[in-house]
């Protein structure tokens, strides 16, 4: 059980050393390279992700800036449009008032003309009626001269009354 056998001891040492060299060359070298590659890959991925994150953040800020600018432009455009609309509205109202005034003036003029026309027609009608009445009342004994004078007096009277 406790026999010392140098042959077995030596073979054990040689077996172990050969095994160690074999395992180192066959497997461990490659294995450590894979581990290093993976660690490098992970490191690269993390760095790349962080870079992307930073880029995304800067892009977001840039877009935010753009959006703010667009918002400002929109607000300005709305303000301008509102102002322009108000001006246009005022102008239209002014124009409408002007037109309405013109129409009113023209109407007044027309009314005046119509009034004058009516007055003239009324005068003529009154004269005719007066003549007719006078003719009926007086019928006879009035000279032509007296008639004219009477007509003129009536006309003058009408004119005074019209004014």
């Amino acid at each position, binding site marked *: *059980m406790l026999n010392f056998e140098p042959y*077995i001891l030596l073979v054990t040492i040689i*077996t172990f050393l*050969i*095994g*160690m060299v074999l*395992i*180192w060359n066959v497997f*461990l070298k490659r294995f450590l390279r894979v581990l290093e590659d993976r660690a490098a890959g992970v490191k690269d991925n993390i760095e790349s992700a962080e870079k992307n994150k930073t880029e995304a953040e800067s892009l977001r800020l840039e877009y935010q800036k753009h959006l703010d600018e667009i918002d400002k432009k929109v607000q300005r455009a709305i303000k301008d449009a509102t102002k322009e609309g108000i001006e246009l509205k005022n102008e239209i109202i002014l124009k409408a008032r002007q037109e309405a005034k013109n129409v009113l003036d023209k109407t007044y003029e027309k009314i005046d003309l119509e009034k004058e026309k009516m007055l003239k027609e009324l005068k003529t009608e009154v004269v005719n009626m007066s003549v007719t009445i006078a003719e009926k009342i007086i019928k006879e004994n009035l000279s032509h001269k007296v008639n004219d004078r009477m007509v003129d007096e009536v006309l003058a009277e009408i004119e005074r009354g019209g004014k």
Partner: protein
Amino acid sequence: MNEAGPLKEFLIPNPFHVPEVVYMSWIVMALIIVFFIIVRLTLKTLPRGAQNVTEFFLEWIIKRSEEYMGKNGPRFLPLFALLFLFVFISNLLGLIPGFKSPTSNINVTLGLGLIIFFSTHYFGIKAKGFFGYFKHFAGPPYWLAPLLFPIHIIGELIRPLSLAFRLFGNILAKEILLGILATLLVTFAFTDMPWIVQKMLEAGSLILRPLIMVLGGLVCFIQALVFTMLAMVYVAGAVSTSEEH
């Protein structure tokens, strides 16, 4: 201990009649190398299956080495990884009927102890230089060198022996226990005694054997762990500088 007997020659042929313990240690080494070759052939950046287990084990060895030896630790990966695997699988081999743990032979464990002994001093001298390395055997305090130097030398010489005998003793005890239980089972079956007593004894042996095998598995792992950790401590003590201490 040699439980399978006649079946053994048929199941584990040994055409060159190599001593059994050497043959078993070759089987262990072949198993380790074949396993690593298989893992090597299927090595991928994203690990799966056996590669996962291998990576877990090797990273554990690297971490422990770094813990004891700092940044120089991973340099000793082949030594410690193979040491652990060789001792662990050698220990386990004895649990399979017909096989024998190479580590239940003192010559194998002494061989492993000597590998650690020579590695320790080789790496120590390489790291600190011949005189630098042997200087720490003499002190401090250096005025006690005549006393300390022989004590340290004896301590160094005892280390491979303590490693070898601890492993050998534990594994041999496990094998003897399993052998005794197997022998008892057969003995009780053919002994002339009251039927009930015979059956009880047989049942006892039958129940105890798997339990002892489980315990043996645990012993196999613990002994491999202890052997590897002590080897790490010895090498670390030899190569580490005062700053690392």
